[in-house]
């Protein structure tokens, strides 16, 4: 068995280097395929970052009635916090709201003077609610509009934010769906191109395969070197693809960061480098081996 493995490995290795041009084509196509898949992964990382950024900016502000006691306020906060759809509830008391207003407008004496004219604190205490995901806001709103909360709430500003939130939710789900569709379409195309390139390479060896059969080589003895060639092509393509990804993320890291407001491509690559490398390696080997196996099958019928 060991001799058999050693021999098919040796044949595959020699054949790979001796059949130069066809294997260069195979490596090139595999590199494009693996790189494409890797870049789709990186793009997904970027999209996720953007989604988090957008989601961080969405919340619902609930203005509470002015006559509520601190205890009622805390009860309302607790009730909302217990909802599974709610991620955080931050309470801003009417005093805090006043202090914040004064701080924000400390350079505007007219505004501060007008506050003094009013004589009382005109602000309402509020609860800023953030959902676990944008599509949960509708459920939270249903609870806020229920009779149980009627005595507590003065106003919900969701209506103002509703359109924006809905558009963003739709946009985010569209981006996810489109990204998935694009990844799937490109992935299938790339696999088909790889498969066909390897099929052409093996078709070129049809005569050799018939000679091997004539000499009495078993199917596994014929198939083995082609699988080894597929593995070698896959490994080389994975290394090249990894290098391309490294250089691309290194060069474009800062630019992407300024465009996406904080998503540093190179840092992301650094954090996922080992996983990405093994994923590329596995993709290369699996593509190379499966394509070789499927392509050679038809030539091994006795």
């Amino acid at each position, binding site marked *: 068995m060991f001799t058999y493995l050693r021999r098919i490995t040796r044949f595959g290795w020699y054949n790979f280097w001796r059949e130069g041009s066809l294997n260069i084509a195979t490596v090139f196509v595999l590199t494009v395929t693996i790189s494409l898949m890797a870049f789709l992964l990186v793009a997904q990382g970027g999209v996720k970052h953007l989604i988090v950024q957008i989601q961080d900016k969405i919340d619902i502000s609930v203005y509470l009635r002015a006559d509520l006691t601190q205890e009622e306020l805390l009860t309302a906060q607790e009730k909302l916090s217990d909802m599974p759809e709610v991620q955080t509830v931050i309470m801003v008391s009417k005093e805090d709201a006043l202090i914040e207003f004064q701080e924000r407008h400390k350079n505007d004496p007219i505004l501060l003077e007008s506050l003094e004219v009013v004589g009382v604190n005109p602000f309402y205490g509020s609860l800023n609610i953030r959902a676990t995901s944008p599509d949960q806001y509708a459920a939270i709103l249903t609870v806020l509009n229920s009779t149980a909360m009627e005595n507590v709430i003065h106003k919900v500003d969701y209506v103002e934010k509703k359109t924006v939130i809905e558009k963003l939710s739709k946009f985010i789900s569209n981006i996810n769906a489109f990204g998935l569709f694009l990844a799937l379409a490109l992935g299938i195309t790339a696999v088909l191109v790889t498969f066909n390139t390897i099929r052409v390479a093996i078709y070129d060896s049809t005569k050799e395969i018939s000679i*091997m059969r004539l000499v*009495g080589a078993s199917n596994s003895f014929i198939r083995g070197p082609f699988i080894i060639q597929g593995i070698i092509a896959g490994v080389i393509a994975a290394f090249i693809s990894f290098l391309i990804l490294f250089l691309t993320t290194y060069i474009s890291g800062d630019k992407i960061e300024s465009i996406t407001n904080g998503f540093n491509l190179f840092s992301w690559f650094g954090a996922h480098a080992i996983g990405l490398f093994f994923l590329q390696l596995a993709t290369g080997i699996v593509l190379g081996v499966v394509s070789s196996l499927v392509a050679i099958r038809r030539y091994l019928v006795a």
Partner: protein
Amino acid sequence: MIIFETVRKIYSPNIVALKNVSFEINDNEFVSIVGKSGAGKTTLIKLLLREEPLTGGKIFFREKDVATIKPRNLPIFRRKIGAIFQDYRLLPQKTVFENVAYAMEVMGGTDYEVFRDVPKLLRIVGLEDRLNNFPRELSGGEKQRTAIARALAVRPQLIIADEPTGNLDPYHSKDIINLLEKINDLGTTVILSTHDKTVINGLKRRVVTLNKGEIVRDEQRGRFIL
């Protein structure tokens, strides 16, 4: 050793290549199959090697019906036969040494056997100084001698040579035929298919003549008559 029993081969749509061909070949015989192009010589060889299925009749190799050999056992069957062709059929990506060694390696020969026997075989066919050359670097005669060395590497019970001199000049043709005779003298059965009159008339061995898929003559110490 080999029995052809009313063998028929019809190619689609209705091209008759062989019609009820029957004859026997004994151990250690040197049999030439002659005939014009299209007479059915190559078809006969392909059927014997089970490269193609029979339309009718039977072929026995050492009392085994060739048609009943299971596909997975075909490689084992083919290792008993050394085949030589007009177009040499060498593996272009392998050197002379590797081409001959390949036949031994598919049989499971050890590295020791390969490194011991391949140089010997190449010495027999006169290619001991061409071990590391690729087929593209050899002359026609050298390629054919490499093919003979490869055929011998499996220690075959039978050597089939299909037009082995077809691409060679008279000098190299004689060289190859002498080599086949030498192999036969050492105890291996040889089937030689050719339409080279000079080769056949110089051999003075058994000649089976085919014409339009039928045996028209079968003579010991025969001559090339069409």
